[in-house]
């Protein structure tokens, strides 16, 4: 399937690049005033999920590596800052996010080095196994052990989860009523800034090198590309953005639990990314929004919620086999080719 450089095929050609970006950013900027508190929180989750999916797609769509272990970096993005709050009274959201990103990056540097020794299905299995190892460390309480009695107590109280209070944003502590709108702008800024960076990477020689490795790694070696090393770089970069999403998620939900480290959460990220379309830059964003939306719709059923969610996902996959972005690009091309009048 060809890369969709414009982001949405024919539609992108009509409403180009920065104009579209400004339009969307502007619309999102007024959401705190337009939406109810509940819908605003839901939008926050969708934006965070979109950031995580964009980050994952640097590995999945651009580099062709399916990781079922990225939940480990998502969770680490929140746990690192949560531990620092608990033991060093860190109160700044900026420091909390920075710690999370660094921790996720460090973990990915080590685990990614191991994973990228393998390819294809073996890479996927290794990514899952290593991440489940990380999950086990949290759910068993092993990570809390070195912190002595306090750590043990925290583990017993939270079942491996940690509470994250309302942190200061740019030095200001917001009251409960103002906190979510203020955090929303942090999340939005993080997503838009990350999107710009990831787009630059995607279009850079490094991004094209990753795509060439994805298409044929043997050919990539004889044009001089160090395939394993570049896959490792892509893995770490991807995990950094997913870690940032995890940190924001922890602050939004005011807690982080081992569930966010479990491979099933990794699978949700993959599912949402594929749903949107891995060969389109904006595909993962569409997929994330669709996934969160479908999850919300399925919640209307108290009984059989998971079955309803599964059914909705199956319907969407059958209706849009090329992903949502692929379907939108096809529709836009159809409109463009329609004769005038």
């Amino acid at each position, binding site marked *: 399937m060809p*890369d969709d450089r414009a982001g949405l095929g024919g539609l992108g050609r009509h409403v180009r690049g920065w104009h579209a970006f400004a339009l969307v950013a502007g619309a999102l900027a007024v959401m705190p005033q337009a939406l109810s508190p509940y819908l605003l929180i839901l939008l926050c989750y969708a934006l965070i999920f979109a950031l995580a999916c964009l980050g994952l797609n640097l590995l999945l769509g651009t580099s062709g590596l399916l990781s079922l272990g990225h939940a480990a970096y998502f969770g680490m993005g929140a746990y690192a800052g949560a531990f620092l709050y608990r033991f060093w009274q860190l109160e700044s959201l900026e420091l909390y996010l920075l710690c999370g990103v660094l921790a996720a990056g460090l973990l990915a540097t080590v685990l990614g080095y191991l994973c990228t020794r393998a390819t294809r299905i073996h890479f996927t299995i290794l990514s899952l196994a290593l991440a489940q190892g990380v999950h086990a460390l949290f759910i068993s309480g092993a990570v809390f052990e070195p912190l002595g009695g306090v750590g043990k107590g925290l583990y017993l109280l939270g079942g491996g989860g940690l509470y994250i209070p309302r942190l200061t944003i740019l030095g200001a502590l917001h009251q409960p009523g103002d906190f979510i709108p203020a955090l929303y702008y942090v999340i939005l800024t993080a997503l838009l800034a990350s999107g710009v960076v990831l787009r630059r990477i995607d279009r850079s020689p490094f991004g094209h090198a990753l795509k*060439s490795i994805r298409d*044929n790694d043997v050919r990539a070696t*004889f044009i001089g590309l160090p395939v394993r090393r570049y896959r490792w770089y892509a893995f770490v970069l991807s995990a950094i953005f997913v870690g940032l999403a995890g940190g924001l998620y922890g602050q939004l939900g005011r807690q982080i639990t081992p569930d966010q480290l479990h491979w099933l959460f990794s699978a949700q990220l993959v599912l949402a990314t594929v749903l949107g379309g891995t060969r389109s830059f904006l595909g993962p964003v569409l997929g994330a929004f669709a996934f969160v939306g479908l999850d919300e719709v399925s919640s209307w059923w108290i009984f059989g919620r998971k079955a309803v969610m599964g059914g909705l996902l199956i319907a969407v996959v059958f209706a849009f086999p090329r992903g949502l972005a692929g379907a939108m690009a096809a529709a836009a091309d159809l409109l463009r080719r329609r004769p005038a009048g």
Partner: protein
Amino acid sequence: MLEINDIHTYRGPAHILNGVSLTVGPGEAVCLVGRNGAGKTTTIESIMGLLAVRAGSIRFHGEDVTGLPVHQRARRGMGYAPENTGIFPELSVAENLMISRWLSEKARRTGGDGSDEDVERRIYSVFPEVKELTGRQGQNLSGGQKKMVAIARAMALSPSLLLLDEAFEGLAPVVVSRFTDAVIKIKEMGISLLIAESNLANASRIADRMYAIDRGEIIFHGVPQDALGNDEVMKALRG
């Protein structure tokens, strides 16, 4: 520049190359001729490192590169255009070339081999047609266009040696003539060439020296005119 000594290469359990030795000097065009299945592609792939050599050695610019990974041989100046062109179908021609030029610039910045000469200008002087193709995706090119882009991409790495595998295969006679001119131009730039070719007539037009290979062994080494008059070579090429 390139020296291969007594290499033995296997594909699985099959012993394909049985003590192959050849050399390529600076600025030379050397052709390796043989019929299909003689071991030409295996020789090229062994030099490039795509196939491990079980015995023997490969020296490039005096350095033993026998155990070096493929990408490091490319960075040291071995350009390669395989038989199936090997361009990336989902990238545009410009993007295919961009990667090689970027790697070449990185090599120059870290003090690697390479000159300040405009790489683009060199490529387009050999294949001006490539300029018109930059926006097109690799999968939308014709066979001849893909071969052009494959060679252009190999040149974008500023190689000192170009390995071409069946560069003329499947091309119309007028295009073969075009490619012959291109190869001569590349040689005039000081780039050495080792070309695997099953058509003796094509090889004779461009080669300074020629090796003939049959069943994984070199059976002839000399100038093209001598090959044309050699019964054993002609018999081996006809099969």
